[in-house]
């Protein structure tokens, strides 16, 4: 089997390089786009200046440089981070529930986190300082994950139909909660919640990016280190346990990490659904199911997807900034539909 292995390696390498190049390209294009035009060299020059290297590319116009450093760069960074977090969170969820349809948005983790965050916005909470919204989003996401997990499991097994039904219930409940926050909140809070609920990376600040980095980067690394265990888990709980895997611990650690990864994104950019569904699925089609490659490449491809989606959200309609959550759901919804249809006809899709 020497040839296929070599082919596989080359394929992985190609996919990796293509994703990285497209991501960089998207990041630069995204930083260039906007009312104030910036050239590619402006972007690179400002970036290098930002990390302490001064080059001839540094923009001569102070306004351009400040726009890039203070507005565009944090926005690009946020889209990369949130995309990576959501995609890898989706891949992990699919693994622990043994089903390609599990996703933070579908299962209700995103809306649980959204409810927590909305509560913090509505009551103007400052208990945890700059972290308040993030902490509440995490609590909401964590509680809903626990709820789904405990409801969907009976006698050590995860019933996937129950899982999805629980997701529906949580989404409905969190939706009602969000509506209540909007109904009872002041006009300012109401507007903030509405925009934020639609999902937008607009207006990301470095202080927010810093929080997201601190939460998601360690979580992404931790999850990636458990890749082999997720592989074994695909044999089913009992067989995985027979191979020495501590299934219960793996699941609990995974749930906490999924809640962290989802909440970090949701807290600052709102609900962006289906990234965790689409990205791992495409990576699996390209490279096979092994989590050793699936997890890190899903993170990269999630970053790729969101940086381009954010760019599209800004340039599709001239002069207006579409909510990115709307865009991803527009693509992700039909894709989910397609997955449900193909899973239904395949053995093992539901069970």
């Amino acid at each position, binding site marked *: 089997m020497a040839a296929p292995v070599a082919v596989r390696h080359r394929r992985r390498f190609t996919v990796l390089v293509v994703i990285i190049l497209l991501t960089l390209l998207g990041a630069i294009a995204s930083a260039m786009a906007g009312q104030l035009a910036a050239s590619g060299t402006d972007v690179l020059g400002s970036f290098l200046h930002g990390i302490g290297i001064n080059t001839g590319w540094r923009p001569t116009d102070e306004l351009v440089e400040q726009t890039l450093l203070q507005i565009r760069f944090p926005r690009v960074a946020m889209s990369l981070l949130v995309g990576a977090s959501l995609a890898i969170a989706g891949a992990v969820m699919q693994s622990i529930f043994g089903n390609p349809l599990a996703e933070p948005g579908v299962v209700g983790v995103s809306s649980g986190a959204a409810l927590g965050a909305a509560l913090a916005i509505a009551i103007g909470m400052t208990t945890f300082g700059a972290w308040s919204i993030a902490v509440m989003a995490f609590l909401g996401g964590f509680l809903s994950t626990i709820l789904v997990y405990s409801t969907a499991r009976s006698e050590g097994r995860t019933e996937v139909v129950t899982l999805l039904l629980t997701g529906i219930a949580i989404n409905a409940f969190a939706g009602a909660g969000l509506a209540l926050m909007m109904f009872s909140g002041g006009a300012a809070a109401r507007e903030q919640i509405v925009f934020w609920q639609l999902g937008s990376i607009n207006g990301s600040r470095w202080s927010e990016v810093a929080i997201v980095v601190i939460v998601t980067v360690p979580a992404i690394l931790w999850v990636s280190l458990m890749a082999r265990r997720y592989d074994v888990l695909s044999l*089913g709980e009992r*067989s995985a346990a027979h191979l020495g895997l*501590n299934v219960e611990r793996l699941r609990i650690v995974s749930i906490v990490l999924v809640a962290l990864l989802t909440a970090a994104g949701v807290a600052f950019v709102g609900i962006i659904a289906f990234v965790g569904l689409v990205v791992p699925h495409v990576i699996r089609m390209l490279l096979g*199911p092994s989590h050793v490659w699936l997890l890190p490449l899903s993170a990269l491809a999630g970053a790729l997807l969101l940086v381009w989606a954010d760019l599209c959200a800004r340039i599709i309609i001239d002069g207006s900034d579409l909510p990115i959550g709307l865009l991803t759901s527009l693509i992700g919804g039909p894709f989910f539909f397609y997955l449900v249809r193909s899973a239904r006809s395949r*053995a093992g899709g539901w069970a």
Partner: protein
Amino acid sequence: MSDHRAPAYRLRNVSCERGSQCVLDDVSLDVNYGQILALVGPNGAGKSTLLAMMSGDLAPSSGTVELNGAPLDSYSAKELARQRSVLLQANMVSFAFTVHDVVLMGRTPWAKTSDEDTDEWLTSQAMQDADVEHLASRSFQALSGGEKARSSLARVLAQDTPIVLLDEPTASLDLRHQEDVMVVARRLANSGHAVVVVLHDLSLAGAWADEVVILSNGMLAHQGTPEAVITEATVKSVYGIDVHVLRDPNDRLIVVPKRA
């Protein structure tokens, strides 16, 4: 490895209640190295439950289970995985892993203790024994029931443990592969492994097992050599059916129902 003077398993007065129902009732049993022990009995007699007790999936509600002379629950998941491998009745894989990937996962308990060459060698050996080499690059999900069962058996063999627990390994297999599985089990036992196998086919049990245990309603009804245990009288009393117990030309037992 393990202390071979102690039996692989020693079960004493093991009972298991699920809900209000008693699925195992006061079972005492030794499983020895170097032997095939066949567990037989009607549907719902408690065979799989007994196997789940041995594999550590279920804890008995009363009684004790010892592995190599030490309480089963004193082993960590990983230590257990290096002592016993388990083939379940139903085997599924969530994502489109190839058969080779799946069999290689059988090496998981030995991660960092064996090198990659050993893993590859044992994996290909196991695939040869289970006759799934030709399926190596196929997706496990796309296989037939029998091919899945054989691939899972290969995964269990790759785990390379002194104790092998097989729950109906022959259930979905054709005649040839049924025999192949029992030949593999025989070879394992001859090289010192303890093999526990749940079977429905009394002729297979009679032909291949060193010791047969008949379970009935959660109780150990009969235990002994195939000749001693598989008789027209015991089959009648446990299964409620009249059978002929015959001998093939090599003097192995054959069990067939009496038909009008």
